[in-house]
């Protein structure tokens, strides 16, 4: 039996098992730590930083930081919420997120995160980058306008599908997702059954022909905030 570790999140004593990350332990206790790049079944990637928590006074990514006895974790303090708001607002202005006509609206994790954090408008200036849509594949399209560079598709394709269809190119503001072909998605070995097609948190990788299937009001995040499923497990 693995060793039980006791620590606190927002002043509440919680228990986890040795080797767990702060996020895994929090999930087990019904405490939701917001996240966007985290993908269950894959190694935590810690690219989005939305899961930032303050551990013993220092900001850490909850998806990679292991628990330790007696650590003091802040998850819901005004300071942490402000960090998360800033990160999510930056994601909104760095891309072209036209929620009113996006197929993913209502089921989008970025949008849902902004709702949960209560963001009414980003404080940063919009960059309106120029991005090209790739609709060459018969069943899937990629719209980089909406990409937040979380890396879930890269991980899913490589680690779950064993294909490596997607990867990052460039650094800093020039970082982009590229496909494993000279130009087009159609020239890769991506199949519609691949896990990589289902993991995009936003509307950057979508299946064709199934958009707007669920009416407004019945979509995933229309009534319940993102993370409600984890919070409902609280003892």
């Amino acid at each position, binding site marked *: 039996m693995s060793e039980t570790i006791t620590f606190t999140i927002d002043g509440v004593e919680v228990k986890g098992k040795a080797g767990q990350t702060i996020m895994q332990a929090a999930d087990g206790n019904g405490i939701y730590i917001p996240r966007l790049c985290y993908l269950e079944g894959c190694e935590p990637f810690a690219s989005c930083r939305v899961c930032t928590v303050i551990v013993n006074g220092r900001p850490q990514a909850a998806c990679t930081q292991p628990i330790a006895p007696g650590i003091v974790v802040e998850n819901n303090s005004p300071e942490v919420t402000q960090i998360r708001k800033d990160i999510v607002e930056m994601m909104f202005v760095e891309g072209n997120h036209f929620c009113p006509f996006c197929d993913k609206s209502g089921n989008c994790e970025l949008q849902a995160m902004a709702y949960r954090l209560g963001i*009414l408008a980003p404080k940063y200036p919009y960059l309106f*980058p120029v991005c090209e849509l790739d609709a060459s594949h018969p069943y899937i399209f990629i719209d980089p306008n909406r990409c937040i560079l979380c890396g879930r598709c890269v991980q899913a394709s490589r680690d779950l599908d064993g294909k490596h269809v997607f990867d990052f190119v460039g650094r800093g503001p020039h970082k982009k997702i590229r496909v494993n072909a000279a130009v087009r998605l159609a020239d890769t070995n991506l199949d519609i059954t691949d896990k990589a097609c289902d993991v995009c948190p936003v509307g950057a990788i979508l299946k064709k022909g199934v958009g707007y299937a669920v009416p407004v009001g019945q979509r995933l995040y229309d009534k319940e905030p993102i993370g409600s499923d984890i919070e409902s497990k609280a003892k």
Partner: protein
Amino acid sequence: MEKPRIATASLAGCFGCHMSLLDIDDRILKLIELVEFDKSPVDDIKNFTGRCAIGLIEGGCCNEENVHVLKDFRKNCDILVSVGECAIMGGLPALRNGIPLKECLETAYINGTGVYNPSGRIPNSEDIPLLLNKVYPCHEIVKVDYFLPGCPPPADTIWEACVALLTNKPLDLPYELIKYD
């Protein structure tokens, strides 16, 4: 006591947010009891007649005139509210932001499918407001005090916001009323 005044404007928008304002149904009678409408397409008053408590702005800024109207609202209103996605982030009109202005105008007036324009010229009269290089969210032009997202924001969102602002209560929208679509 004199009733507080409300002004509204539709800049680069589709009037959908104004439709949503009217969608507060019979509460519009209550709103009329609470406020007096000043410059607004609702009553067709073209110029401000006095200081306004609240200015509701629909649409972003796509041309010179939008900028003038917006600055005029900022000058004449105590509280300025961006209503809807276009005012907040440019919305549909901002789809042109990735396309050079010259290309937009040439497609609209010269090369576009179905365009009939024997002169082959892009209209350039001084009566036509000059287009800006891109569509700007309102808060990138003037200071905006509150934001009501949505396309359009639900009638309840607009109602809750107006009532809260007019009665000096904090504007605390419930989860279901914050929507970007």
